[in-house]
């Protein structure tokens, strides 16, 4: 980087400007990544956080995907699943939405009915909290929106539930979760969805479980827990829009980096011709040029990431935003790789510069 580093100091204005562009692009990518992850968690964390490995839903009609909103299982299906080979636990649970009120506070909540204390299936509530009929466990989001705490009485359409505890941060379909006993959920959901046993089953399985065969036999569809977010309505539409925006920004960053280094290479083509005439190998010059691109990208991506994390921390209570190292690492790496790809295409011009032009050049 002998020449590269000195060129960058010499043309610091141009390189600072380019680095700032990368900072802004990475800031945007980081914010969209945080928003994507935040919205995904707000939409699906209640199901993706269940302490099981698979989820079973009713088999979809032809041409449709499995969805919690269209799923309803019978008691027989749940019973057969609990007896299937390789299934250690098949905990039924119900999913729905409702409006909850408490002392003048009202909130749209997601209602998760789970096995009550003493019923088979075990607790699915964060921290293994038990729930009995007539009681509810609130996520922190629900507790904050309703200003509720243990002992308060919550009103849902046709039901009054006493708050037993506040546990977890789960939400579903962008509404905080309230956990209640499955029979209470059935009564609550009965009006809208008809009488059913449960929306889905939460499975703990072993390696010898033949999930496909059991699905075929019982008319269900079983998915890995980590894929369950795709069974939440609106998740894919929301997520794909944001992913498209992020992909577009990454492509723009590659184009901008490539365009900058294309112009930069043209501007220094005389210097490159001189170095070639003096005996510099083309590989040395290409490495030197790519080192400049790498320095600009790494500095810009690091600063942009730091800004995105800081901005995310500032807005995390206002908008659904979740940005951690894992969420940031993939887009940052993609931006670096695509930026270097763009720069590589641009600095290919180095190979075409004829050292003979140095004989007639004036510098």
């Amino acid at each position, binding site marked *: 980087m*002998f*020449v590269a580093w*000195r*060129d960058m*100091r*010499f*043309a610091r204005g141009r390189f600072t400007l380019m680095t700032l562009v990368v900072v802004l692009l990475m800031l945007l990518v980081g914010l969209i990544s945080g928003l994507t992850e935040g919205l995904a968690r707000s939409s699906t964390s209640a199901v993706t956080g269940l302490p099981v490995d698979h989820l079973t839903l009713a088999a979809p009609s032809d041409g449709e995907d499995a969805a919690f909103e269209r799923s309803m299982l019978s008691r027989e299906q749940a019973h057969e699943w609990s007896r299937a080979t390789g299934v250690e636990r098949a905990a039924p649970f119900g999913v729905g939405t409702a409006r909850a009120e408490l002392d003048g506070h009202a909130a749209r909540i997601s209602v998760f009915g789970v096995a009550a204390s003493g019923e088979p299936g075990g607790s699915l509530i964060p921290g293994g909290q038990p729930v009995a009929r007539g009681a509810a466990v609130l996520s922190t989001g629900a507790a904050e929106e309703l200003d509720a705490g243990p002992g308060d009485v919550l009103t849902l359409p046709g039901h009054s539930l006493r708050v037993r505890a506040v546990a977890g941060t789960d939400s579903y379909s962008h509404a905080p979760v309230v956990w209640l006993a499955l029979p209470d959920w059935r009564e609550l959901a009965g009006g809208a969805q008809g009488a059913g046993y449960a929306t889905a089953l939460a499975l703990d399985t072993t390696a010898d479980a033949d999930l496909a065969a059991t699905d075929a036999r019982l008319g269900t569809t079983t998915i890995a827990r980590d894929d369950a977010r795709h069974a939440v309505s609106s998740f894919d539409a929301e997520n794909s829009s944001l992913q498209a925006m992020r992909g577009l920004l990454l492509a723009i960053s590659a184009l901008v980096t490539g365009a900058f280094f294309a112009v930069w290479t043209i501007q220094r083509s*005389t*210097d490159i011709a*001189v*170095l*070639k*005439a*003096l*005996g*510099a*190998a*083309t590989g*040395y010059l290409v490495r030197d040029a790519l080192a400049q691109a790498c320095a600009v990208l790494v500095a810009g991506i690091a600063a942009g990431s730091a800004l995105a994390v800081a901005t995310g921390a500032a807005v995390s209570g206002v908008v659904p935003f979740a940005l951690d190292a894992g969420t940031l690492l993939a887009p940052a790496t993609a931006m670096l790789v695509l930026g270097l790809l763009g720069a590589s295409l641009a600095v290919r011009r180095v190979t075409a510069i004829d*050292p*003979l032009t*140095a*004989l*007639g*050049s*004036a*510098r």
Partner: protein
Amino acid sequence: MTLSLHDVTLTYPDGDSRLTALDNVSLDVPAGSVTGVVGPSGSGKSSLLAVAATLITPDSGEVTVDGTATSGMDRAARAALRRRDLGIVFQQPNLLPSLTAVEQLEVMARISGRRRPSDRSRAERLLAAVGLADQAHRKPQQLSGGQRQRVAIARALLNDPAVLLVDEPTSALDRDRGAAIVDLLVTLTRQRSTATVLVTHDHEYLSEVDHIVEMIDGRLGTRQPIG
């Protein structure tokens, strides 16, 4: 001979025909001597230098640098030869604007793929040899035309080349500075035993060179021994 051109012919495309820039040119330049190449514009002086510098491959003939025949060499091998055995001083200094005077020399060590702690001190000694010890940390735009050309000469010598090719180094300088540059080249040639080719159109600077050859229409004319 340290630099030898034997029956070198070079042509360029010129519409439907070809223009002959060098016509069966043969030239031998021994170590420790300066050969001046003179001739009118368009006579082939720069083509001769470009062929000797391995920047152009001739149509026929052979160029030998310090015993190494260059015909058949690929681009990478020619670049390696230039790094190792050839020093080139351009008509204009062609210094890199981002580097100081001493760094202009150090870059030669970098492109040679060798980095030694002594590179800096060696570059400073060479700058001192061309009278620029106190200008080592100035950038090209802070140096005069003559000083820039001296830096270019020092740069060409950093890798101890066997052959020094100099293309009209005085064209942008006044008479006194031009004479000083030619004196410097002759002195360094003697000290370092390089085979130096000095292309110029200024006959007045040639009193100190060992041989003069004249190019006319791509051919080498009579050689004039210098007394």
